[in-house]
């Protein structure tokens, strides 16, 4: 006797898919609950934490944003191995504006977000015409090259970096700035990817020639997606600069490339909530394992391999399935 597992949507999922969700509180709560969880946890509970864990939360949010930015690119089929490029460029733009012209963070962060996004898009524009691994290769090479360039030419403070930048007024302000950014990116990107525009973007990933034959300019769409992802990355860079009061070569460090990647793969790609969940698991975990030092990156690498090979689905897809569907064993005739 053979059995197989059957998965069926819960009745409440079917009922709450349409405008009829408004018919009862249960359906509305069913829809509201998963969306409220991140908002309540982030905005409500964080002021209660100790200053140390608030700091951890800030760096978690930074990595979560980078992971979300990575996820935006993967929606269009672009694998970035160098999120630190976005982080580093955002950080240097904000740092330079603040250091040389004494702009306040109120202006440097938006300028760095948009300017960094544009600059990264222009830098990566030649690779967008190619499919496959070229994008991954070039994103891997670029941050390392920038690192060498800064080191060799001593521009922008060289190895010392730009120090003594304007900090945020307080830790709580910084916390709310990054969390607001995180929530905006999460819900904004989820909305974008579920719209008609997002359909085109996902179509590019699935079958680029089919999208082309529909008369759409896929290079233009890819550039737009790259701009969106890169801006979010540059925002975290600009934020991190003002947080540490420092812009320098660590901005191009490997941590900012591998952590978001591992977080996104562990959490589940293509959902934005998954990468965020992954970051909220991995970063506090690495904080607990702080004593291990350089071994942390080894763990991230191994996490990445294990999840890519053995559990490509990720945690979030699993949770989502449990929430929306029930399972039962049925006999196979």
């Amino acid at each position: 006797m053979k059995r197989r597992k059957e998965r069926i949507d819960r009745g409440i999922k079917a009922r709450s898919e349409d405008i009829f969700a408004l018919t009862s509180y249960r359906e509305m709560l069913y829809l509201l609950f998963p969306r409220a969880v991140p908002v309540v946890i982030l905005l409500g509970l964080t002021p209660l934490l100790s200053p140390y864990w608030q700091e951890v939360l800030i760096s978690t949010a930074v990595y979560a944003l980078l992971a979300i930015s990575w996820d935006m690119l993967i929606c269009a089929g672009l694998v970035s191995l160098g999120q630190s490029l976005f982080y580093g460029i955002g950080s240097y733009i904000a740092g330079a504006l603040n250091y040389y012209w004494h702009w306040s963070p109120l202006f440097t962060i938006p300028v760095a977000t948009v300017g960094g996004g544009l600059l990264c898009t222009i830098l990566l524009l030649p690779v967008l015409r190619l499919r496959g691994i070229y994008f991954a290769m070039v994103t891997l090479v670029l941050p390392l090259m920038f690192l060498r360039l800064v080191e060799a030419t001593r521009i922008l403070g060289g190895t010392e970096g730009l120090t003594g930048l304007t900090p945020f007024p307080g830790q709580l302000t910084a916390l709310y700035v990054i969390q607001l950014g995180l929530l905006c990116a999460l819900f904004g990107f989820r909305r974008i990817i579920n719209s008609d525009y997002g359909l085109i973007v996902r179509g590019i990933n699935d079958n680029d020639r089919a999208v082309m034959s529909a008369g759409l300019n896929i290079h233009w769409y890819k550039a737009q997606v790259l701009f969106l992802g890169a801006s979010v990355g540059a925002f975290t860079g600009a934020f991190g600069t003002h947080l540490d009061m420092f812009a320098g070569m660590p901005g191009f460090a490997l941590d900012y490339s591998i952590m978001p990647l591992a977080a996104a793969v562990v959490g589940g790609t293509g959902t934005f909530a998954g990468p965020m969940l992954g970051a909220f698991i991995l970063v506090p975990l690495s904080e607990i394992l702080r004593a291990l030092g350089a071994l942390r990156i080894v763990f991230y690498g191994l996490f990445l391999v294990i999840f890519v090979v053995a559990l490509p689905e990720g945690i979030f897809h699993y949770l989502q399935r449990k929430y929306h569907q029930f399972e039962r064993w049925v006999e196979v005739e």
Partner: protein
Amino acid sequence: MLLGTLIYGFVNSTILALVAMGFNLTFGISGVANFAYGATYIFSGFLVWILLNSLGVPYFFSVVIAVICAALLGFLIYYVVILRVKGLALSEVMATFGLGLAIMELFRYFDFVGFRYTLPVFFDGSISIGDVYIDYQRLAIALIAMALTLFIYLFTHHTRIGLAFRAIAQDERTALTFGINSDRIGALSMAFGSALAAVAAIVILPLGTIAVEGGYDVLINALAVCIVGGLGSTMGILVASVMIGFAQTFTANYLEPHWMMLVSLIAIAVVLVVKPSGLFSHQKELEERI
């Protein structure tokens, strides 16, 4: 000055070719971009060092052991990791990247950092050509790179496995109908590429110290040469390494050494704009370009 630049440019080109050959071989045959390539390079370097200095194995044997171990590593990576995500290019890239990172950072964790990690040169001393002094090691690199290129050419054109390599590279399905096991050939190509990385490490590393950062540099150089030359094309590798090698040396000598690393970046950018699939990649052009 000019003669010196030319000679050192040539040596630099052979170094680049040596470094890129293994990466290119694996990609050309099985289509796997082995981002753990730099890690294999560093792994073999440290392995030789450990065998020589900690275990006291004679030089010749430690070299042979290191090359075999690197090949085994590549073989294992293919069977354990890549085979499970075969065909999903992006997953392959992420898995090998994560693995390479883990290997390299593991060496950093065990404190393999410092000037004492050096490999012995083959022959000490130097000779002068005209008024240019060049050490024997650099000459050895150039000779070994040329010999290896010849060896790979002969191997892929005149042995059973080599012909199977090319068959899989040209058309996997037709090759399957001839009874060529594409998984085994893929794993062998990975082992071969890793062994070439080990050879490159043993030949090149005596010029400096073995450092974890070197693994990233090797990967970058291999990627740059492969992108410029066209992934999977041996002729492209040779031409691209000569171009980039001479360009780097000329920049270092006539402009400033600082700008040397920009050369490969500019080369990548120009090639991607002008001829995106590389200078010599004819058969794959349609697949990669959209």
